[in-house]
């Protein structure tokens, strides 16, 4: 069992299959479904990843979908080193210092 009632989870859903999508899309987008993710408290007694479940979102709305994550967290960060940026500060400070101040 991956999650029990009340656990904070993330669910996933297919909103529109490729054939149900708007006809006015670029070819690459037309070929893939419209997908959705939302988080909430699990309403089922228990569930495993991949099960169809129902959740109550943070504001109290109910939503159904496939359980994909338990205790989801954000993984974005400040990126890796980008050495290409390092010249900018030194270059600008040097230019301003050229006045002999």
């Amino acid at each position, binding site marked *: 069992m991956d999650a029990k009632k009340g656990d904070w989870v993330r669910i996933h859903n297919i*909103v*529109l299959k490729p054939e*149900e*999508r*708007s006809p*006015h*899309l*670029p070819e*690459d*987008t037309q070929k*893939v*479904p*419209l*997908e*959705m*993710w*939302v*988080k*909430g408290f699990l309403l089922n007694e228990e569930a495993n990843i991949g099960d169809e479940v129902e959740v109550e*979102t*943070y*504001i*109290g*709305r109910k939503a159904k979908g496939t359980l994909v994550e338990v205790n989801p967290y*954000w993984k*974005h*960060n*400040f*990126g*890796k080193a*980008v050495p*290409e*940026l390092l*010249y*900018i*500060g030194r*270059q*600008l*400070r040097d*230019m*301003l210092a*050229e006045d002999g101040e």
Partner: protein
Amino acid sequence: MTRDMSYEAVMARKGEIMRKAIGIDYDKFESGGIAFDYERMMRETGYSLQEIQKIQSETGVGNTPLLELKNLTKLARKLAPKGKGARIFIKDEAANPSGSFKARRAATACYHAQKLGYKGVIAATSGNYGAAVASQAAMRGLKCIVVQECYDSRGIGQPEIIEKARKCEAFGAEVLQLTVGPELFYTFLILLEETGYFNASLYTPFGIAGVETLGYELAMQFREREGRDPDAVVVTNAGGGNLTGTARGLMKAGAQSQIIGASVDLSGLHMASDIHFNRKSFTTGHTGFGIPFATWPDRSDVPRSAARPLRYMDRYVTVNQGTVFYMTEALAQLEGIERGPAGSTSLAAAFAIAQEMDEDQIIVVQETEYTGAGKHIQPQLTFARENGIEILLGDPTEEIPGKNIILPKDPSYIKKNELDVNKLRKSYIKNCIHNNNVERITDEDIKFLAEDTKSSIEFVKETLNEIGVQY
């Protein structure tokens, strides 16, 4: 009773859903043709400047600092011909509660929703507006849902959009994230129908009126500090609301400043393309929104958009992604202010335009936005590289969006590209004819088109002659 929830059926209920979710009867302002009474719509459904100042002060929005960028001005003067190089100022809108000028729009939307008795608000946005609505909703005890276009079909999310989702959640909002596609609107309509919440659209009269205080404050702050109005105001342009509201506020203060729109050049990338989605390093403030919304503002999520940039724009320039990244770094390194990259679009443009202006003139960058994990040049460039974009040093005018990002070799390579505003005006007139399916247009329509494009009756007639439309 089970409602038909298919794409076609929900889209067909759009008018009915929207009426309930905004509470504005747009038909009142229609003339039956191209024209509609814009000023009456703004007057009767919006709020006065004084009312908005009061609403915004209730939740700590506005009155943001005006800073002079002395080192960047000095740098611009080193590059400019003798006697040129206007003083560059910036309005630090990141000081608003949610970290961007969007708090101004959200403040009036949430106030209005609360006044009309709605229990919650919904916003469809991948931008700073989501956090702004979530923040204002938190202050007013309203529930909030933010719908984002966030991932491509591989499930890979744009770091900047992910950060905005995090911020919305921090304010207690529900964030519903979708993959690429304009059918976000379909999900949005379903949520409005299901919850009965208020549509906190970016494009309502009160949303736009919320930005008027920004323009008004600019004029007042400059008069107090410098005894005069700024000569030019540069506005990052996407959906047109920032430009429209700021220009209207300046006009209400009686200022005659030149209004310059600025967008990041993303030409060649399709905004609804799953593959292109993660090949761009800017999620807003770019030409992919700026040009379509300028030339057809009524494409928005309300029947008549209150954001009409061509009505107020004097000039429109573009800058490259690499240039904006460089200027974001320059702002931190020379002025000690670390702000988000998208908000630096107008800064990059202002730095180039200042070099054409006289030393005693003033140019102002009218916004900044907060920076953070994901919403920063380093994660953006890391992400770009992981998505196959080359990062180069050289001449940014050679940049190909979706293929490379070219950082200027030195600040003399910071240039802006001037767009032909008359061409955009003509394109807007053509879209009005085409989208309204009219073959003959009235004097009232001509007058409206002249006002809505800041041109003249002659210009509109000349355009109609060119495309063979009778009047």
